[in-house]
C-alpha cells in the first residue's frame, strides 16, 4: 500500500501544478474583462425603456444565473460546433471557450452589481441633471456612472473571486489549468493525495488574499460614501 504523503513526489509535481495555476488565473482574468464590459451592457439593456430590449435581456440574465455554468460550458464547446452558425463562432479552442463561458455567466451577475450601484444613486442626482438640462448621455457619463461604479466594485470583486473558483471546470474540456494537471498526474502516477492537496493549497494561496482585498475595498467604499 502506498504511503499517504511522499514529500519528494510532492516537490516534483509542484512546478507543473503552479504552471497549471497560472493558466487558471489567466483564463479568469480574461473572463473578468468580458464580464465587466458585457455586464454593463446587460445592465443598461435591462433598464431600457423599450420592452423589446429590457424583457429579453432580463430573461437572458435570469436564465444564465439559474443554470449551471458547467452545462453552459458544454453547450458552447460541444453543441455550438454542430450548428449551422459560422465557423468563427463555433470552432474555438478550449481556453477561449472557457473564458467566454465564464465571461458570459458572470456578466449576468455583474449586471446585477451594476444595477444595484445605479439604483443606489439618489434620485435627487437625476433631478439635478434634469434641472440643468443635461443630455441623457452627459447625465450618465458625468453624474450617474461616476457614483454608481465605485459602489458596484465590492460586489463585482466578490463575483470575480467566485469566477476564479469556477475556472477549474475547464479541466472537463482539457484546458490545462491546475485541476487538469492534478487529474493528469493522478492518471499517470496513481497518486492522488499530493496533486489534489497541493492544488487545494495553491488555490487557497490565491483566493484568500483576493477575498481579503475585496473586503478592504468594501470597507473603503463604505467609508467614502458616508
Amino acid at each position, binding site marked *: 500500500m502506498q504511503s499517504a504523503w511522499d514529500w519528494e513526489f510532492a516537490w516534483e509535481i509542484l512546478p507543473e501544478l503552479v504552471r497549471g495555476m497560472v493558466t487558471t488565473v489567466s483564463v479568469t482574468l480574461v473572463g473578468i474583462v468580458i464580464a465587466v464590459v458585457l455586464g454593463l451592457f446587460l445592465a443598461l439593456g435591462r433598464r431600457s425603456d423599450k420592452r423589446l430590449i429590457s424583457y429579453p435581456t432580463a430573461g437572458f440574465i435570469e436564465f444564465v444565473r439559474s443554470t449551471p455554468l458547467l452545462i453552459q460550458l458544454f453547450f458552447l464547446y460541444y453543441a455550438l460546433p454542430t450548428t449551422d452558425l459560422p465557423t468563427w463562432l463555433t470552432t474555438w479552442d478550449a481556453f477561449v471557450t472557457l473564458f467566454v463561458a465564464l465571461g458570459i455567466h458572470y456578466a449576468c451577475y455583474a449586471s446585477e452589481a451594476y444595477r444595484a450601484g445605479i439604483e443606489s444613486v439618489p434620485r435627487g442626482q437625476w*433631478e439635478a441633471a*434634469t*434641472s*440643468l*438640462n443635461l443630455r441623457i448621455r452627459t447625465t450618465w457619463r458625468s453624474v450617474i456612472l461616476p*457614483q454608481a461604479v465605485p459602489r458596484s466594485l465590492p460586489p463585482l470583486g466578490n463575483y470575480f473571486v467566485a469566477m476564479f473558483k469556477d475556472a477549474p471546470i475547464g479541466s472537463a474540456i482539457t484546458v490545462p489549468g491546475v485541476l487538469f494537471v492534478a487529474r493528469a498526474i493522478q492518471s499517470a502516477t496513481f497518486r492522488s493525495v499530493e496533486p489534489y492537496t497541493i492544488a487545494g493549497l495553491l488555490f487557497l494561496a490565491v483566493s484568500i488574499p483576493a477575498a481579503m482585498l475585496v473586503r478592504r475595498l468594501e470597507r473603503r467604499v463604505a467609508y467614502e460614501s458616508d
Partner: protein
Amino acid sequence: MSQIEHVPPSPRGAAAVEMQKVTKAFGELVVLNQLDLHVEPGEVVVIIGPSGSGKTTILRVVMTLERIDDGYIQIGERQLYHEEKNGELVRASEKHIRSIRSDISMVFQHFNLFPHMSARENVMLAPIKVKGLSEDEAAEKAKLLLDRVGLGDKLDHRPSELSGGQKQRVAIARSLAMEPRVMLFDEVTSALDPELVGEVLNVLRELAASGDMTMMMVTHEMGFASEMADRVLMFDKGRILEQGPPDKIFKDPDHERTKSFLRAVLSH
C-alpha cells in the same frame, strides 16, 4: 388627457411663466386642479400653504420633473409641453422640451450637488455640456458666480467639505450658471440648521432685489416673503386659495383657511 383646444397665446405679452388650466394627478389624487398662474418677468412669487397641498408640484411641472396631465405651460413666448405641427398644437417631443428647459432652473431642498465634483466643477458642468462653453470660459464664469454667492475661497472643495448653507449657495450658483429666465426654489432653507439659513436668504435677497430674475419660491420663511415677494400665493388642495401682495396676504387675508394657516406657521 382631454381634447386639446387651441388656446391663443396670452394677450398680455410674453409672461415669464404662464400656466393655463394645468392639471396633474398622481393616481387618484388630483394635486393640481386646473391651475391658472401668470408670472411677470422679474417678478418674485412666493407660494405658501400646508404640506401636501401640491405647491412643490407646481415647481416640479414647470421644471419638467413631472409631466402635466392637462393644460398648458408657457415659458416666455414658447409653449413648454406643446409644439406646432402643421398649424396644430400637439404634445411636444423631448427635443422640443429640451430646447426650452435651459431657460428654467431649480434649486432643491436637499441641494442635490454632485458629490464627486468640486464646487467649481459642479457649476461648470452644465455650461460646458449644454451651452458649449470652453473649459476656460466655464471656469471663469464659475469663479465669478461662486464669488457672487460668497464662496470664492471654496472653489475646489467637495460638497462633503461644505456646510449646508454653503452647499445651497453652490447649488444656487450652479443654477445661475445656466442663465435661466426663471428660477425655481423648492423650500431651499428647510433642510438647513437655523444659523445657516441667513446666508442663503442673503443670496436670494440679492437676486430678488436685482429685479431681473423671475423667481418662484415655495418656502416657510414668511419674513423673507413679506420682505422680498412681489406676490404671495396661498395654495391649498390643488388650487390657489388667494393671492396678492405680501401686505395683503400676511396682514389681511380674505380666507379663514389662510388665516389659520398663517397663525399656525407664525406661532413657531
